[in-house]
C-alpha cells in the first residue's frame, strides 16, 4: 500500500470527522446543559439531511446555500420540542426520558420513510469531481468545503457560548441551575434555546454531510450511535471534545476501512468506546463530574 494512498485516506477521514464532530456538538451541548441524552439525535440528523435535500432540489440551491435555512428550521423545531414536550420530563428518570425520545425518534425516522421512501438520495454538485492537489495529497473540493464550514459553525457556536449574554446565561444554568434561577434567569427559555442550538448544529451538519454521503431513513440508528461514540470519546458536555472525538472517529473509520475491511470500521469505533468508558469515562477533554 502506497504512502500517498494512506495519506489521502487519512486526510479525507480527518475532514469527514469534522462534520461528524459538528453533529456530535449538538448532542454534547444538550447533555451538558440539561443532562438529557438525546436518543433521537440520529433521527434528527436524517431529517436535516432530507431538509437539505428538499431545499437543494426544490429551490435549485447547493447544500451549502441551503445550510442557513435548514439550521434555522431545525432551531425552531428543537426550541418547540424542548419547550412543549421534553421540558416536562427533565426531572423524570433516565428510562422515562429514553422512552420519550425513542417515541420522537420513531416518528421522525418513519415520517422520513413515509415522505421519501427507503431509497438512498443524493445531490450531484458541479464541484463533486474537482479536487485540490498539494504534492502527493489530493483533496476533494467538496470535502474541504464541508469540513471548513463545519469548523466555522463550531467556532461560531463557541463564540456564542463565550461572548453573548444568552450564551453566558446558558453556561450559568449548566453550572448551577438553582443559582441561575436565584439570579432571575428564565431557565425554561434558556433550555429551549440550548436544545434549538443543539438541533441547529445537526441541521448544519446534515446539510454538509449530504454533500459527502447519500441519505436514507435507516441511517438514523448509525448516526445516533456515532454521536454517542464521539461525545463519550471527547467528553460529554465538552464542545472541543466533540470536535476532537469526531476527528478521531473519522480517522479511525478511514484507517480501519483501508487497513482491515470497510465493514469492520464501526467495530473499531465501538472498541474505542469501550476503552474510553473504562479508562477515561470523562472523555479526552472532559472534566471529572
Amino acid at each position, binding site marked *: 500500500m502506497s504512502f500517498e494512498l494512506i495519506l489521502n485516506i487519512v486526510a479525507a477521514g480527518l475532514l469527514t470527522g469534522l462534520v461528524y464532530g459538528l453533529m456530535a456538538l449538538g448532542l454534547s451541548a444538550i447533555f451538558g446543559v440539561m443532562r438529557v441524552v438525546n436518543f433521537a439525535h440520529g433521527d434528527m440528523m436524517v431529517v436535516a439531511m432530507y431538509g437539505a435535500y428538499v431545499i437543494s432540489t426544490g429551490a435549485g440551491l447547493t447544500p451549502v446555500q441551503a445550510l442557513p435555512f435548514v439550521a434555522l428550521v431545525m432551531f425552531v423545531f428543537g426550541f418547540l420540542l424542548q419547550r412543549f414536550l421534553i421540558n416536562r420530563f427533565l426531572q423524570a428518570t*433516565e428510562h422515562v426520558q429514553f422512552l420519550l425520545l425513542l417515541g420522537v425518534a*420513531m416518528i421522525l425516522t*418513519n415520517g422520513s420513510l413515509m415522505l421519501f421512501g427507503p431509497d438512498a438520495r443524493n445531490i450531484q454538485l458541479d464541484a463533486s469531481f474537482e479536487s485540490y492537489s498539494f504534492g502527493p495529497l489530493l483533496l476533494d473540493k467538496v470535502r474541504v468545503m464541508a469540513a471548513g464550514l463545519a469548523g466555522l459553525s463550531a467556532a461560531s457556536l463557541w463564540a456564542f457560548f463565550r461572548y453573548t449574554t444568552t450564551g453566558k446565561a446558558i453556561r450559568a444554568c449548566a453550572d448551577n441551575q438553582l443559582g441561575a434561577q436565584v439570579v432571575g434567569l428564565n431557565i425554561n427559555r434558556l433550555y429551549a434555546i440550548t436544545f434549538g442550538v443543539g438541533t441547529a448544529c445537526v441541521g448544519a451538519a446534515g446539510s454538509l454531510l449530504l454533500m459527502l454521503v447519500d441519505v436514507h431513513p435507516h441511517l438514523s440508528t448509525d448516526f445516533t450511535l456515532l454521536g454517542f461514540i464521539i461525545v463519550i470519546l471527547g467528553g460529554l458536555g465538552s464542545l472541543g471534545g466533540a470536535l476532537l472525538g469526531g476527528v478521531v472517529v473519522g480517522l479511525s473509520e478511514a484507517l480501519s476501512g483501508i487497513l482491515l475491511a470497510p*465493514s469492520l470500521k464501526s*467495530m473499531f469505533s*465501538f472498541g474505542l468506546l469501550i476503552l474510553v*468508558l473504562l479508562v477515561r*469515562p470523562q472523555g479526552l477533554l472532559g472534566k471529572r463530574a
Partner: protein
Amino acid sequence: MITELTHGVPRRALVLLALLLVALLVAPGLVGDYMVSILVILLFQAYLGMSWNLMMGFAGQFSLGHALFIGLGAYTGGVLFVEYAISPWIGMAIGAVVAAAAGAVIGTLGFRFGVKGVYFALLTIAFAEFTRILFDHWEFVGSSSGLYLPVANRDSSDLWNLRGSATMFYYVALGMSVACFLLSHVLLRRRVGYYWQAIREDQDAAETLGIDTFRYRMAAVMLSAALTAVGGTFYAFYYNNLYPETIFSMHRSIELMLGPIIGGIGTLFGPVLGAAVLTALGETLTHMAEGSRLDGVKQIAYGVCLLLIVGLRPHGLWPWLRRLLGLEAKS
C-alpha cells in the same frame, strides 16, 4: 413451597392469576393458528421483559444491550444443534452459561471501573454492537449470510429437539414465562431481592449498610443474561434463521425493554402487561396500516402511543391498573 409462594399475596390477585393461567392453558384449543402465533410472540416478549426487568427493575442496572445475550443464546443453541445435533435444551443451558460469562465480563469491567447509569447503558450497547460485527465476520457461524436451522416439520412434534407445531412452541413459551415469573416473585422476597432494591434506591447507602454491592449487582447481571439467553435459544428454534444484523441489533434491545417500561419497571406483572399491550397495539396498527399503502404509518402510530403512555403514566400501566383492581398488597 406453595405457602411460600402465596404468602402475603392478596386473595383476589391469586384468583385472577389462576384464571389467567387457565385461560392461557386452554387458549390454543379455542383460537386459530394465527392467534396462537401471536400469543407465542406475546409470551416470548413477556419472558424477555421479565428477564430484563430483573436487572433494571429490581437491581437498577440499566442495560441497553440485551440483544447481546439473546444473540449468544440463539447462536449457541443453533450452532450446537446444526453442527453437533445437540438438543436445544442442552444448548439452552450452555448458551445461558456463555451469556452469564459475557454478563460477568461486562459487569466486572463496568462495576470495577465505576461506570454508572447512562454510561453503563452505553457500555452494554457497545458490547452488543461489537459482538454483532464480530459475528458478521465469523465464517463458522455463517457470518453475515446467516445460520439456518433445518425447517421444522409442523405436523409431528419432537419436543426434545424443539421441532414442531406453533402450539408446542406456545406451551414451551408459556412454561418459560411462568417459571420466570415465579422466579422473580421468589427472589424479590428473599434476601437477595431486598439487597437489589436497596442498591436500586441508593447504592451508596446500601454499601454503607454492609451490602456487597459489587457481588449482588454481578448476580443480577449474570442471572438476567442467562435467562435472556434461554429466550434466545427459543428464538432460534422458533424462527429457524439467525442473522447477526437482526438478532444483535439495537432495535431488538429496545423492543425487549419497551414492555417492562410501559407495563411498569420493577413490578412483577408489569412486563407481562406491557407485552400484552404492545402486541395488541402492534397487531391493531398492522391491520389498520394495511389499508394505507405508506411505509412507516404503523411505526409512527407506535411512536405516538409511546409518547402518550410516557406522558400519562410515567410509572407504567401496571401500578395504575393494580390500584383500579384493588390488588395492592397489604403490608
